[in-house]
C-alpha cells in the first residue's frame, strides 16, 4: 500500500484526474467512446519518439549516478547487483501493430514510472546528499509522465483506447535497505536496456 500512496497514486492522479483514478485500468472495448480532455497534438508520434530518445539518452547517466551513490559493492558488482532481472516486467513486441506497441509502451512506462517513484522516495531517505541523483530521477519521472500522457492521447484519439491495464513493480517499502538499493539498481538497469529498445521501435 505504501508504494501506491507514494509512487503510483500521485502518478495516476496526475494522468487520470477523475473518479476512480488509481484502480487498474482495463482496455476499453473497441466500440466504447474515448474522449480526451484536450485535443491531442497533431504531431503526437513525433513527440513520443522524441521523448523516448530523450529518455534513452539520459538512461545510462542515471544508471551510473545511481549505482555510484550506493557505494561499494555496487559499482564493482553490477552483474550481481544491478542485472536487469526484473520479474513481471511488461513485455514489448517491436514487430506488433502500432496500437499494440503503444499499449505495451503505456504499460512499460506506467511500470517504470511507479518504480521510479519508489526509487526516488527511497533514495531521498537513504542517500539524502545525492542531490544530482535526485534531480536526475525527478527529471526522468517528469518526462515519463509527459510520455504516458502522450501515449494515452494517441491511443484514445486514434484507436479509441481510454484505459489500459497496467502492472507495477514490487513494493520496496517493506524491504531492507540493501534490498531497496539492489532492486532500484536492477530496475534502472532494466530501464536502460528497455528504453533503448523502445526508442528504436518508434
Amino acid at each position, binding site marked *: 500500500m505504501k508504494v501506491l500512496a507514494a509512487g503510483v497514486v500521485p502518478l495516476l492522479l496526475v494522468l487520470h484526474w477523475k473518479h476512480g483514478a488509481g484502480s487498474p485500468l482495463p482496455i476499453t472495448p473497441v466500440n466504447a467512446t474515448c474522449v480526451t480532455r484536450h485535443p491531442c497534438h497533431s504531431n503526437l508520434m513525433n513527440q513520443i519518439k522524441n521523448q523516448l530518445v530523450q529518455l534513452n539518452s539520459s538512461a545510462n547517466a542515471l544508471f551510473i549516478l545511481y549505482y555510484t551513490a550506493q557505494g561499494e559493492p555496487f559499482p564493482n*558488482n553490477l552483474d550481481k547487483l544491478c542485472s536487469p532481472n526484473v520479474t513481471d516486467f511488461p513485455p514489448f513486441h517491436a514487430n506488433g501493430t502500432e496500437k499494440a506497441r503503444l499499449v505495451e509502451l503505456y504499460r512499460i512506462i506506467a511500470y517504470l514510472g511507479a518504480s521510479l517513484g519508489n526509487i526516488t522516495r527511497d533514495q531521498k531517505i537513504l542517500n*539524502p546528499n545525492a542531490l544530482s541523483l535526485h534531480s536526475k530521477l525527478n527529471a526522468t519521472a517528469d518526462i515519463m509522465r509527459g510520455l504516458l500522457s502522450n501515449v494515452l492521447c494517441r491511443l484514445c484519439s486514434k484507436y479509441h483506447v481510454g484505459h489500459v491495464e497496467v502492472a507495477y513493480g514490487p513494493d520496496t517499502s517493506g524491504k531492507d535497505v540493501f534490498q531497496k538499493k539492489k532492486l532500484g539498481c536492477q530496475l534502472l538497469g532494466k530501464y536502460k536496456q528497455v528504453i533503448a529498445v523502445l526508442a528504436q521501435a518508434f
Partner: protein
Amino acid sequence: MALFAVVQAAFLLTLLSFRTYQSEVLSEPLPWTPESLEVSINSAQQCLYLQWRVHNLTHHQELKMVFQIEISRIETSNVIWVENYSIPVTWNQVLHWSWESKLPLECVTHFVRIRSLVADASIPEPRFWSNWSSWEEVDAQKSLGQDPLFVFPKDKLVEEGSNVTICYVSRSPESNISCAMEDVPIHGKRLSPNVSVFILNDVRFIRETGTNIYCLNPSNMSGIILYVSKVLEEPKDFSCETQDLKSLNCTWDPGHDTTLRHQSSQRYTLFESFSGKTKLCEHKKWCHWQVAPDSQETYNLTLTAENQLRRRSVSILFNLTHRVHPMKPFNVFLKSISATNATMTWKVHPVGNYSTLLCQVALHGEGKVIQQHNVSVKVKSQYFLSELEPVTEYVTRVRCAAANHFWKWSEWIGQTFTTLEAAPSEAPDVWRNVKSVLGSHIVTLFWRPLSKSHAHGKILFYNVVIENLDKPSSVKLLSIPAPANGTELTLDQCSYQIHVTANNSVGTSPASIIVISRDPGNKNVEEGRIQGTEDGFSLSWKPQSGDVIGYVVDWYPQDPRCQLQWKNLDPNTTSTVIRSDAFRPGIRYNFRIYEISTERIAYLLEKKTGYAQELAPSENPQVAVSNLTSHSFSLSWKDYSTDSQSSFIQGYHVYLKPKEEQCHPGFEKVVLSDDSVCCQYKIDNPEQKTFVVENLQPESFYEFLVTPYTSVGEGPHDAFTKVTIPDEYSHVLIRIILPMIFCLLLLMVLCYLTSQWMKEKCYPDIPDPYKSSVLSLIKYKENHHPTIMNVNDCVPDAIEVVNKLEGSKIQFLGARKSLTEMEFTKPAYLYLLPTENYSGPGPCICFENFTYNQAASDSGSCGHVPVLLKTPPSQLALLTSPENLLKTLEQNYVNSSGGSPAGETSLNYVSQLASHMSGDKDSLPTNPPGPALCSEYRTQMAVSLGLASPSPSENSSLSSVTLLDQGEPRR
C-alpha cells in the same frame, strides 16, 4: 549391637518413607505451571518474545512466582541462556518476556522452554520447580524467501565501539562465499554447511547512510546496511534562565549528534519534578519551559536525552529569581555632544517585580575600553560621559543584569559618536635652516604636523608672523594652507622673531617662536665624523653657555632632495642617540647640534657627518689618461666626488697589470680576488685625484685600474683600462713628417693653380653652347625648344665621302676590312636623314667653332665633318631609314676611334646651308635647299639619338659625326 541394628533399620525405613513421599509429590503436576507458551521473533530487534499463562489461579489470587527460561541454539542440548524471571502473577494474566540475541535469530534454529516456581510467602515451603514445558522451536529460516543467499541482521543499529555478529545463510552448501565490509574482507566461523558467522569488533562510524556489508558467491550477492551511530552523550552545560520571569529558556550542549539516516534521531525531554510536568523538546540544543503562574520559585528540571540505544539524563535545581538574564537595553541615544563631553540615555525591559537592574556603561576608543561605569536602573537611565578627546570617534555600550542576584549580563547594545572640534592644544614643532646669500638670510622653516590628540580637528592653515626685532613696528603675516609643512623666507640682515601657529576651524594653537639673529653664529665649526650603529647615531656635545632652553639636533642626508629632520632636547641633555627608520646604509648623514638660547636664538655647536653603515664603493672613478709618452702617462679622476660615496673614502688604489715579474718602484705586488696578480700603488690622500705612471716600456701595452678604498673595502675590480705606450721616436717622426706632408700638399696646390692659369691663357676650354647666353635670345622666337638646331626644321645634312684613291688604307677595327676594297666613282653623299620626306622648314642656328677643323674653317664651310664610312654603296639605301642609319653610324663611329690618319680618307660633313657657302655644288644632292632662316651649325662631336648606342666624349676623337635627330634634339 542389636540396639544399634534396630535403630539403623528404623532410620532407613523412615528415610525410605520420606523419599517415597517426595517422589510422589514431584511426579504430580503442580497446579501453577506455565502453559500456552508462544514464542515469536522480532527480526528488527533480534529479540525472542515469549508469552504464556498460568492456570489454576483463583480469582483475585496473586502469587509471586519465578519462571526459569532456557534457550538452546541449533539443538536443544546446546543451552545458551538460562534466566529466572520473577513476577507476581494474577488470575488469567498473560506473561511476557523477551530476550535479545547477539546472533541474528535468522542464522540458526533456537529452542525455548520454561518452568515455574511459586515463591510467594503464602505458600508454605518446601517449594519445587514445576516440570519443563516442551521445547518450542524457533526457525526463522523457514520464513525466508527464495533468494539463494541472505545476510543478517538487516539494517541493524549499533553504537560506535560495540561488537556486532552477522551471518550469512546460503540455500545450498557452498564453500566459496566471501564477505566484506566496505571493501574490507571479513572472516568468520562456519556454523553449518549453509551458515557462517562473522564477529565485527569495535565497529566505527563511517557515514550517516550506514555501512555496507555484503557476501557474494560466484553468481549471487546479498548484503545488509549496518548503522553505526555515535554514542549518545550526557547533555553538557545544562542551564536554564529567564528574561522576564514568565518563561525559562534552557540550553545545553548535546555533544555528538547520533542521528543516522533511516533511523530516528535522539530526543530530548524536560521534566520538572515539583510540578510533575514533562515537555518534549523540539530542538536539540535548547527548550522553552513555561513558568507556572502560581509563583513557583524553585525548579528541579531534568533533561533526558534518548535514542534507540541509550538514555541519559541531567538535572538542575534552581531558584527562578536567581536565573534572571535581562534582555539587552534599548533606545540608546547620545545627546549634548561637545568636544569633551556627551550624555548617553537608554531604557531597559522590566523584569517582573525585580525591576532594579545594574547596568554597565563602557566607552571604547581606538579599539579599547577607555571608561567603564556601573549604574543602577529602574526603567530609564542616563550617564554623563566626560574627559573625552575632541574630534574623536567613540563607541559607547551598555548592558544590564539583575541587581539583587547577579546571574548574567545582557547583550551589549551600543552607539557610535564623534566629539566636536576644539582649538589645537599645542604649538607646532618648528625648526629652521638659515643660509646667508648676498647679504640676506634665506630662512627655510619646517614644522611637523600636529598629532591628532593635539590638532583637535583638521588643521586648515598655518600662520607665520615675522616680526623684525630691530624695527618693532614691522610685522608680516603669512598664512600657509595645510598640509604644507614648511615655507621659505628671505630676510635681510636684521634680527627677526618668527611665530608659527596651527589653525583649525575652531581656533589657533599656541605659537612656536624662533628667533633669527643678524649674527649668523659660529661659522668655523669643523665637521667631525661619526659612526652609526644599529641603534642609530650617538651624539654628544659640550655646552658652551649655561643659559640655554634646550638643544636641537638636526640632520639631513647627503641627497639634497631629502628633507631636514630635527630633534628637540632638554637643556640638561648633552648627548642623544638619533634613531630613524629612514636611515639607510651607504647614505651619508650630516648632523648639526644647536643650542637654543633664552632669546630663542639657535647657535651651532657642532657638525658631524657619518654613515649608519658604511658600504664598499660600488663604482670606480672615471679616469682620464693624459700626457702619454713612451715612458709614462698620467691618470686623472678629478670629477670623482668623495662626499657622495657610500662610505668615507680613505684613498685610492692604482692597479697596474705588470709586464714583468717585478712591479714598478712604488708599486707592490698583490693578488686580486680573481687570483690574478697586480701591482698596486696606494694613494692615502682621498683628495689626490691624479697619478703619473712612470718607468714604462715604449711600444708596450698596459692595463690599469683606479679604485677607491674605504674602511669597509675598496671598489669593484671591474674592467681594467688599456693603454698602449708609443715608441720612443714616434713623436720625432711626427714632428718631421707632418710638416713635410703639408709642404707637399701646398706645392701641389700651387702647381695646379699654375696649370689652370696656363690653360686659360694658352688653350681655354671650348664654350658650351648650351650654356651660352645666345640661347636666351631665341626664347622669344617661336621655337618652343631652346635648342641649337632641330632636324625637323633643317635640311638634312649629308656626309660627303671623299675618297682618296692614293691607296690610302683605313683599317677598320670591327670589320677587319679595308676601305680600299670599296670603289666609288663619284663622291657619295650619305643622307643622315631622308630628304624626300622633309617638309616643314624651321629655324636653324649654326655656330662656328674655329677650334674644330681648320680646313673647314678655312673653306668657310660650317658643316664638313670628317666621317669614316665603311658602308658599301649598295647599302646606302638602307641608310635612308633612321634605324639603319643609326646602326651604321654607330659602327662607323666606333671604328673611327681606331684613328686613321686624317687626310688620307676624309668624310666631310656637309650641311645643307654649308654647301652653298662652300661652293661645292657638284657634290650636293639634288635635294631642295633648306629654308633661308636656317642657321648654320658646325659641331665637333657626334650626337647619338639617345638610344642604346654609346656616346663618345667630345675629346675622344678627331673625327666626329653630327647626327641630328628628327625629334627632340639631344646633345
